[in-house]
């Protein structure tokens, strides 16, 4: 056994060991048991980092490729193996890093929970199954771990199962995912039946040599089927409905599962199967991603629950990644997966920090009816919680795609990809860049809305505010680490110091030399190169616009201008403050007066009307859009399609039940009529 294999097995099984330990022994030890999990995850992380270092030194080679026959009988041979290339190594680091940080964070967040040790056990189980997905070299093995992720995330989402909503959210996540998984299973079987192997590399190789008979329609279908699994797990339209509900789980769980790792598993899997997706299948993938990105972003605008905003933002970002894969910029997609894992985990953990603090404050003033997650009860938190605030701002800047932050690098590459795709294909594909840039502007907007509503302005509830305080070190340390990792230089220096150049060491490290069924990578690369600069320009503008809009909407609406002027007054800037920066005058001059003049001339429009019809126009449109999509999302998808399936099956079940009348002679009659109808049916045709 080579050291590499040993390390890989350790990465896989240490978290499982942690699970077993916590379940069987943890309860007896009590709180101190978390040290075992921390140690296990710490070792896992350092091993994963050693793999990453190796990849950085010699990119382009598989670090580990072992295969052992699991069982073999006749035509049916199934192999079990581990495959670690650069992609897998990066993914391992992402999973174990976030998991490790979440472990640290949870020691404080979950303090006092009656099932404290069991929680750590579940985290271990989850990490184990996640690492299994990453290490699997065959689709079947991946599927097995894929399904194992389901129950473990079910346990974590429904961890506080006393809450009815948490319990049913866990169930919903589990069931919705199953729909996608079933498609994946069929796809895997289709591939196996055609090619006789589950091994991903072997499939890619055989597809390259044209092993798939016919016109490739079957390959397209198989690809889309396997991708169905990603639709479920990565919360893509139309199966994204479970993710916002999954926020009922403890917040660190949301950070681990619903931001950084599990939902990224779908993207990771798509990266893995990318080599044998046909152009048609890729087109499908791109459209799904595009729809998801835009739709989820629009929904995020109206949410008031801090975690729900982040949940929809996650869906939107996952849509980005999937869209990137669809347009062929799969390195950009994977890059975004990595950067997103860092800044979104940071955002979630920061929001958890806020919620934790709010919760304690509410507890102190004996208020049990106020929702600690509602942003309308917050405001002005930045002074009380400076570390949380700063890390959240860093992460928000990153997700908004501001230079010097990681989000800029990866998002920019994706947007360039969509633009390149449009340049190559024209026609309806304009939808992809539109959705990409549209989602970008909205993202910047809602993220800063969140920041302003939560941390800026006046406190909405002074009584709560007094009791707020920064969370302990165990919770802030992960925040600091993650926000540092959201800075662009981590991924670029030392290869390049140009902050606008995303081609740092990281992108080199995730290069692959593979050939792809779907795309001519040279053409795509060329198009990407051309699209790079315009994409950057547009995306910068767009991000700036979004933040500006948030400033106008939320900062200036919330901040009491009079107070501000008084404060400035003390500094002697009286005139300026007296005339309120002349803002009113400016408004008066360029807006009101012409307008009043216009109204006097034309009709009896007044200020209220103007307010309603014009200024709020954009707000109104977006609100309506988001209302509508939220409505359609819930009422249509959730109620009609998902529940509809349940209802229909239930209805038919009820009807069919009548056949079981309880009278034996009716049963016999049923048998006779059955024979007759089968006989007639088969003789008639």
């Amino acid at each position, binding site marked *: 056994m080579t050291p590499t294999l040993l390390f890989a097995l350790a990465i896989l099984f240490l978290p499982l060991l942690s699970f077993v330990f916590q379940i069987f022994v943890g309860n007896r030890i009590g709180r101190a048991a978390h040290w075992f999990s921390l140690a296990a995850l710490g070792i896992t992380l350092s091993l994963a980092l050693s793999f990453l270092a190796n990849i950085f030194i010699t990119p382009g080679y598989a670090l580990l490729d072992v295969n052992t026959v699991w069982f073999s009988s006749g035509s049916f041979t199934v192999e079990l193996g581990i495959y670690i290339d650069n992609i897998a190594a990066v993914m391992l680091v992402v999973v174990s890093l976030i998991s490790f940080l979440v472990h640290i964070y949870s020691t404080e967040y979950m303090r006092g929970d009656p099932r404290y040790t069991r929680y750590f056990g579940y985290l271990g189980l989850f990490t184990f199954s996640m690492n299994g997905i990453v290490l699997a070299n065959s689709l079947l093995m991946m599927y097995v771990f894929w399904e194992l992720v389901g129950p473990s995330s079910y346990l974590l989402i429904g961890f506080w199962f006393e809450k009815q909503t948490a319990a049913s959210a866990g169930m919903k996540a589990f069931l919705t995912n199953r729909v996608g998984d079933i498609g994946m299973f069929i796809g895997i079987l289709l591939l196996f039946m055609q090619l006789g192997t589950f091994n991903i590399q072997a499939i890619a190789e055989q597809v390259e040599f044209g092993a798939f008979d016919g016109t490739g329609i079957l390959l397209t279908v198989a690809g889309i089927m396997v991708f169905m699994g990603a639709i479920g797990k990565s919360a893509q339209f139309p199966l994204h409905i479970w993710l916002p509900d999954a926020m009922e789980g403890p917040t660190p769980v949301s950070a681990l599962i619903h931001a950084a790792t599990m939902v990224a598993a779908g993207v990771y899997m798509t990266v893995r199967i990318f080599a044998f997706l046909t152009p048609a299948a890729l087109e499908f993938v791109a459209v799904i991603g595009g729809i998801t990105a835009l739709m989820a972003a629009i929904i995020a605008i109206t949410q008031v629950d801090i975690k729900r905003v982040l949940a929809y933002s996650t869906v939107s970002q996952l849509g980005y990644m999937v869209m990137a894969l669809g347009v062929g910029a799969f390195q950009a997609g994977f890059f975004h997966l990595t950067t997103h894992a860092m800044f979104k985990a940071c955002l979630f953990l920061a929001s958890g920090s806020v919620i934790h603090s709010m919760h304690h404050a509410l507890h102190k003033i004996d208020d049990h009816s106020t929702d600690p997650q509602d942003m309308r009860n917050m405001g002005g938190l930045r002074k009380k919680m400076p570390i949380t605030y700063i890390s959240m701002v860093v992460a928000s800047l990153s997700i908004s795609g501001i230079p010097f932050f990681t989000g800029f690098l990866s998002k920019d590459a994706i947007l360039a990809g969509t633009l390149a795709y449009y340049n190559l294909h024209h026609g309806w594909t304009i939808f992809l860049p539109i959705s990409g840039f549209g989602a970008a502007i909205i993202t910047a907007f809602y993220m800063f809305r969140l920041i302003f509503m939560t941390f800026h302005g006046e406190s909405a509830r002074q009584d709560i505010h007094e009791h707020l305080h920064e969370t302990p070190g165990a919770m802030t340390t992960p925040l600091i680490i993650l926000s540092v990792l959201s800075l662009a230089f981590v991924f670029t220096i030392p290869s390049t110091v140009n902050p606008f150049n995303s081609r740092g060491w990281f992108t080199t490290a995730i290069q692959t030399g593979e050939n792809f069924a779907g795309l001519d990578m040279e053409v795509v690369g060329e198009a990407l190169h051309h699209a790079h600069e315009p994409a950057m320009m547009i995306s910068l503008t767009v991000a700036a616009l979004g933040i500006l809009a948030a400033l106008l909407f939320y900062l200036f609406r919330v901040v009491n201008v009079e107070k501000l002027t008084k404060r400035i007054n003390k500094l002697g800037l009286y005139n300026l403050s007296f005339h309120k920066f002349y803002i009113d005058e400016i408004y008066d001059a360029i807006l009101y007066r012409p307008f009043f003049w216009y109204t006097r001339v034309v009709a009896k429009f007044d200020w209220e009307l103007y307010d309603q019809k014009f200024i709020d126009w954009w707000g109104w449109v977006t609100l309506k859009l988001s209302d509508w999509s939220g409505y359609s999302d819930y009422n249509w998808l959730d109620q009609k399609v998902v529940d509809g399936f349940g209802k229909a099956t239930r209805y038919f079940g009820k009807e069919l*039940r*009548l056949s*079981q*009348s*309880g*009278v*034996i*002679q009716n049963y*016999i*009659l049923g048998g006779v009529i059955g024979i007759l109808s089968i006989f007639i049916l088969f003789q008639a045709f």
Partner: protein
Amino acid sequence: MDNLQSYLIISTILFSLGLFGVMTRRNGVAVLMGIELILNAASLNFVAFNRFGGMRELDGQVFGIFIIVLAAAEAAVALAIIINLFKNHETVNIDSADQMKG
């Protein structure tokens, strides 16, 4: 008249009558009678085929004997069950046993 087809028709009629009896009689014992008719029809078939099919052996008749033996065993068990039902339900109408359904 002494040919295969006439025996087959007789057996078919017996079979259908038995089937009808099983499906419509309310009394458990009468249902049992219907089952006996079906078994007799099958047995008649075996013997008729044995006679006219040019079979070398008498397998058909052997099967007939087994059918008779099994019918006896089945009748005994079924009657025991029906009598047991009578003890508990005070009736042998088999549609009174419809507690379990749906």
